[in-house]
């Protein structure tokens, strides 16, 4: 088999572009509804480039949580990019600057597409797939953030339920074994138990303690 190239990365990503655009448009609309205005969601997509963390930050702040709680929720979700970055690190040859740029284009989807089995990764495929994702993510966010203005009251539209629906959509593919399901249920339980007693956002951060179940392996 010939070695895969930048083009293969672009091509592998193409069928997912519509889904990414839809995800990005929902982010723009919901961020706008949560009081982020139109510019901040676009800047966030261009700099953070990690969907679930962006949704978490917007959802915590929109619920009246503090800056610290919103930041903590987002960065805890992004901690998984630590091990993911380490897994691709040996395959990112080139200058420190090039490795840095490639690292920024690593998200769940581009990482999966660049995988070549037995822990090997193709950096050209990663770059192609990551770049397509990045453009779709930022463009979709812009469309959503601008469209969001035309929409009416978020509660009337049921947009408050959209956040829960979206997080459920992100959780289901992760819940592949019993431990992951138990961690999700424990996280939900901790959050609900604390909601009446702590400021908004704190229950979410406290729920991250459920990840300590991972020590049992």
């Amino acid at each position, binding site marked *: 088999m010939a070695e895969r190239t930048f083009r293969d990365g672009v091509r592998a990503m193409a069928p997912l572009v519509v889904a990414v655009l839809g995800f990005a448009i929902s982010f723009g609309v919901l961020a706008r509804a949560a009081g982020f205005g139109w510019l901040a969601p676009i800047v966030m997509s261009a700099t953070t480039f990690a969907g679930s963390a962006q949704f978490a930050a917007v959802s915590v702040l929109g619920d009246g949580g503090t800056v610290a709680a919103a930041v903590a929720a987002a960065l805890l979700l992004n901690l998984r990019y630590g091990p993911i970055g380490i897994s691709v690190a040996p395959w990112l040859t080139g200058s420190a600057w090039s490795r840095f740029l490639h690292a920024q284009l690593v998200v769940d989807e581009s990482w999966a597409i660049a995988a070549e089995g037995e822990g090997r990764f193709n950096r050209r495929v990663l770059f192609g797939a990551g770049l397509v994702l990045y453009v779709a993510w930022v463009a979709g966010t812009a469309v959503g953030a601008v469209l969001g203005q035309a929409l009416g009251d978020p509660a009337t539209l049921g947009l408050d339920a959209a956040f829960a629906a979206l997080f459920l959509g992100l959780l289901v593919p992760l819940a592949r074994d019993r431990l992951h399901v138990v961690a999700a249920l424990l996280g939900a339980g901790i959050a609900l138990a604390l909601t009446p007693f702590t400021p908004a956002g704190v229950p*979410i951060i406290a729920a991250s303690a459920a990840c300590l179940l*991972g020590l049992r392996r």
Partner: protein
Amino acid sequence: MTDVWLVVAIVGVGTVVIKAAGPVLLGGRPLPPRLAGVIELLAPALFGALIAVQTFGDGRALAVDERILGVAVAGIAIWRKAPLIVVVVLAAAATGIARAVF
């Protein structure tokens, strides 16, 4: 600076640092497996919490309202393998319609 921009700035910088840490600084040394196992469970734990609070949280109180209907519809849509945007739109529509009707 407003809270929104503060969150955008700190999350942006923090994420760039986390993503760059492995490839730029560590250069390919593996994580201890126990630590990797803990980090792997962060996302499901946080998603579980976010779903619970977004469905039942009402300020500092818990409430069962029209949102549960939207989440149930989302669950069915996910089960039927609908794309995420369809899941989100259906959930919002179900909740919005339930609010308008009841």
